[in-house]
């Protein structure tokens, strides 16, 4: 408990020093939150080779904006918000090409996978199936509009609560719920379209 408190105090001290322009004081903050930022970036962007560059840009941006941090929300939330916004801008710039839509799975193996998934405990999927499923849903997610992708990623992959997402995106919880519902629905429709197009 005391250790947590001292850690929080140290963090506040680092933030205050960084706000005075001491870039050295920002180092411990980078070390503390780098993995969190890496996770957000990776889940949102899904390009391993881009993650580190984007994370660096996010920390750079955060340092430049740190004077605007007013301790109202936690530093983690404030930083995550910058990360989400940065990735959102990135996603809007680099929209996935339509080529990524096509799934390299045969119709037969897709059906088999679906049958396995249909069971209430899809944990029973073997490694190969999981990989294919991951690839497939990853591709569907990649072609979703940036808004849908951000909100679905935060909910489904980052496991944020509706309230946390609302805080991150500066939205009302009710708005987040509606957007989540619409995003899921759109992805399902996209999956249906894919099926109707016969792949």
């Amino acid at each position, binding site marked *: 408990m005391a250790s947590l408190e001292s850690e929080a105090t140290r963090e506040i001290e680092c933030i205050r020093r960084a706000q005075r322009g001491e870039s050295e004081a920002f*180092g411990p903050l980078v070390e503390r939150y*780098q993995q969190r930022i890496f996770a957000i970036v990776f889940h949102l962007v899904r390009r391993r080779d881009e993650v580190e560059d984007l994370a660096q840009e996010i920390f750079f941006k955060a340092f430049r904006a740190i004077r605007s941090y007013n301790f109202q929300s936690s530093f983690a939330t404030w930083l995550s918000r910058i990360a989400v916004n940065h990735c959102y801008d990135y996603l809007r710039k680099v929209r996935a090409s339509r080529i990524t839509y096509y799934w390299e799975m045969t119709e037969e193996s897709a059906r088999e996978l679906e049958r396995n998934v249909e069971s209430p405990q899809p944990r029973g999927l073997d490694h190969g199936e999981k990989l294919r499923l991951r690839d*497939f*849903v990853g591709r*569907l997610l990649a072609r979703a509009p940036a808004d849908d992708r951000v909100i679905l990623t935060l909910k489904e992959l980052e496991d944020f609560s509706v309230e946390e997402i609302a805080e991150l995106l500066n939205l009302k919880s009710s708005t987040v719920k509606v957007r989540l519902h619409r995003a899921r629905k759109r*992805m*399902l429709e996209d999956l*249906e379209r894919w099926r109707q197009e016969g792949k």
Partner: protein
Amino acid sequence: MNCQAMRELVSDLEGGELSAEAREHVSKCAACRELLRDARVMQAGFRALAEEAVPEASFGFASRVIRRLHEWQEQGARQEFFETVGRRFVYATLALTLALLLSLVLPTSGPVRGVAGADFLGLQVESQSSQPDVIGGDLGDSHDWIPARQPE
């Protein structure tokens, strides 16, 4: 339950169980069965995506960020210096230009400065010859604000 209601329900399923009513509808409707299967595929896909290992920051990541911040700060300081100097230079040039323009324009615009303007235009000699200065003498400057007396 109809298909539309089922569609709304499936979008928010999040891995939960279907109600008895929904199960009954699904058992009779092939389209909704397919929809439900799609939803399960998506849920399982999201879980698989969430389980994927996140790349770790490479060694020295934080140090590189700090180095970049240092460079930016130094560059920023240099830039600020040049901006300040540059800005002052521009202001000074503007002020000089304005002063020059005023010296060209203002002399002809008023009765008091009319003479100065005339001086500037080389008409001073004529002015002096017609109105000798009582203070400065014949060769002195003219001072129009002192009423000139007629020589006795």
